[in-house]
């Protein structure tokens, strides 16, 4: 069969399609975005009318996917690691309901924080939910796992997590496909109470989940993705999780590996393999591209037992992505670097595009704030976060999606007025709306700037759920329409913008200001341009 050249993300998407997927539900987020985009562009997905529209946030995505699994079809939800925080309530409880159709959760982690606020490890969540986790080592395995995960989910009545990291998500290699399966028929769960998590039922379901533990461990022992390669040098055994196995093997291209190696790509951990390594080896090195999850488990709190090396004892750095060189250091293998980076090489920090509407909005905001002093702008996550950098230096916080409005509220409650929130249109519908309701309920005097560019710019210009009804939503939540102020952020409008912002600072209630201009990176997106025209924006 012909090999397709696919990103890790795309391999997961193709694997899911071929496994008879009926719906993907997701909110964009690097490095997970390309999974859903691949399905949106897929011919088979179009022919089968697989659900593939973006959701408002990760929680709505997770719940919609669970609903599809309830109805007997195969569903997948994809998100970046921090998205799983947003969806965590649904996620943990989906392990208690179990599934009907197969249910797969893809979490894309970002060690080294290439484009994220933290490097949390989703395997912790998978363990917390007590469900199987698959961690592919390469693109083919990513495909194979996505293909197999739905059946696993159905057979063991649990959601299955696929955990990848940026490097695999955004790296391309050849993938061989398997036969395309039919979608599953619509069907109700056999037990009509299965998804009703009243305490009595939840207790019953939870016991069942606990009872699957031994079966899941057995499954990991027999998994084609886990393997124990014995070696003659038992002074050290190595456990290499997911993509870390590649970095390990890179160091054994020209030398033979005599250490026993456990390639670990399916959890819960294969207990017997671990016990074997502990009993046969003098020490254990653990390579994980993420938190020291397995290392902490094996190390425990007692000094007795087989010494464990990894991120916790300094054999590997405590944080950041693994690389072949970091692993070489851990193995004590010398390597010759190239020349150092010359001093004259300077950084190119990311910046907002020239001509971006956010820039004009910040210019106006900075002038309007001159009379009040610094430290009052609570921003959010999106292109506009780059307003934190020079020359604007316009932003004092960026924490998690939606936090701008609520943090401005808390600061205003503490007496900081005016307090300003800056949030994008997509982030507003992701998780700004509920915070706005808190503000409206109490009439907290803050000024909220929803910088509307009709799109989800930061992640590459996906649809924004706010398009066409932003003011209605804001008025519907209860903001006085007289204090919903829309204008076009351009250099020519600077004075007008400044005076509008100042007027709203003076208003002792909730104001929402909407600078509105299309993201210039989307000007060639014909369907968006058409939609904007139709809406008369």
């Amino acid at each position, binding site marked *: 069969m012909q090999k397709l050249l696919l990103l890790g993300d795309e391999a997961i998407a193709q694997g899911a399609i071929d496994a008879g997927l009926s719906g993907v539900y997701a909110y964009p987020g690097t490095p997970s975005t390309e999974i859903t985009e691949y399905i949106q562009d897929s011919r088979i997905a179009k022919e089968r009318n697989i659900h593939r529209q973006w959701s408002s946030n990760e929680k709505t995505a997770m719940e919609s996917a669970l609903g599809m699994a309830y109805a007997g079809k195969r569903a997948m939800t994809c998100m970046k690691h921090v998205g799983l925080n947003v969806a965590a309530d649904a996620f943990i409880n989906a392990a208690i309901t179990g599934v009907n159709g197969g249910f797969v959760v893809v979490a894309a982690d970002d060690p080294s924080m290439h484009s994220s606020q933290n490097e949390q490890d989703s395997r912790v969540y998978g363990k917390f939910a007590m469900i199987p986790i698959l961690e592919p080592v390469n693109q083919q395995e990513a495909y194979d796992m996505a293909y197999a995960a739905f059946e696993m989910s159905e057979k063991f009545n649990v959601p299955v997590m696929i955990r990848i990291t940026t*490097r695999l998500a*955004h*790296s*391309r*290699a050849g993938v061989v496909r398997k036969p395309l399966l039919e979608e599953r028929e619509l069907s109700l769960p056999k037990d009509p109470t299965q998804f009703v998590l009243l305490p009595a039922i939840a207790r019953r379901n939870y016991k069942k989940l606990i009872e699957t533990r031994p079966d899941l461990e057995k499954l990991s022992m027999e998994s084609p993705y886990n393997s124990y390669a014995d070696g003659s040098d038992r002074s050290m055994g190595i456990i290499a999780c997911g993509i870390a196995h590649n970095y390990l093997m890179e160091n054994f291209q020209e030398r033979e590996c005599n250490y026993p190696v456990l390639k670990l790509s399916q959890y819960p951990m294969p207990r017997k393999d671990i016990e074997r390594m502990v009993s046969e080896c003098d020490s254990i090195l653990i390579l994980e591209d993420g938190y020291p999850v397995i290392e902490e488990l094996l190390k425990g709190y007692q000094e007795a037992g087989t010494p464990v090396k990894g991120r916790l004892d300094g054999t590997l750095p405590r944080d950041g992505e693994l690389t072949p060189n970091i692993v070489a250091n851990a193995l004590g293998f010398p*390597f010759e670097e*190239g*020349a150092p980076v010359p001093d004259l090489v*300077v950084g190119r920090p990311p*910046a907002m595009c020239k001509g971006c509407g956010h820039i004009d909005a910040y210019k106006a905001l900075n002038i309007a704030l001159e009379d009040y002093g610094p430290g009052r702008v609570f921003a959010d996550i999106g292109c506009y976060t780059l307003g934190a950098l020079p020359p604007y230096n316009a932003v004092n916080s960026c924490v998690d999606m939606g936090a701008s409005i609520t943090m401005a509220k808390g600061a205003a409650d503490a007496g900081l007025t005016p307090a300003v929130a800056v949030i994008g249109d997509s982030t507003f519908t992701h998780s700004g709306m509920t915070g706005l309701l808190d503000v409206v309920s109490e009439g907290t005097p803050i000024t909220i700037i929803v910088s509307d560019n009709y799109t989800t710019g930061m992640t590459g210009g996906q649809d924004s759920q706010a398009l066409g009804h932003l003011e209605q939503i804001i008025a519907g939540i209860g903001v006085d329409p007289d204090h919903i102020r829309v204008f076009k952020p351009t250099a020519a409008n600077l004075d007008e913008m400044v005076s509008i912002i100042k007027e709203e600072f003076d208003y002792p209630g909730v104001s929402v200001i909407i600078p509105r201009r299309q993201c210039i990176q989307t000007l060639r997106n014909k369907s968006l341009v058409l939609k904007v025209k139709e809406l008369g924006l």
Partner: protein
Amino acid sequence: MKSDIVLAGVGGQGILSIAATIGMAAVDKNLHLKQAEVHGMSQRGGDVQSHLRVSSKPIASDLIPRGKADIILSVEPMESLRYLPYLSKKGWLVTNTTPFVNIPNYPEMEEVMAKIAEQTNHIAIDAEKIAVEVATKRSSNIVMLGAASPFIDIEMSALEEGLRKIFERKSDAVVESNINALRAGRAATEVILASRN
């Protein structure tokens, strides 16, 4: 064969088309390939890199280890220097000489060029000038691929076939123009190599 290539540039300069062309050729030749891209902030003028590994044997790591790259192929001069720690002692640095200045503190061009000239194995060509002569300015990335091609163990015909596959959806003229760019880039390197012998 084995070619480990670090592709370098600034967002929007088309290094992913270079990767795609080599990738296409490698798949056609049944070679193994891994290509790690850096997405994310690329749209916004940040530096971008891609690790491209082609080999007749299976490839372990998606990332090239430091000190192991056979080629740094850069479409921007300062960016070519950012990845020097990856270049092996015998490796080639192949770079475009036209700077992409989107920062206030871009270093003096003479200093950048002097650093490039210090590298034992280097090729520096004005890809934009060549692209304008034989194709269009937009093909300067493919000129750079041509300039690096003598050091990549893949035949020109396979690279040309790769270009054809990638650009055939656009038009025959686009295909031809890119093939011209590829050949002109290679010729430029050959002239430099001949003059050094």
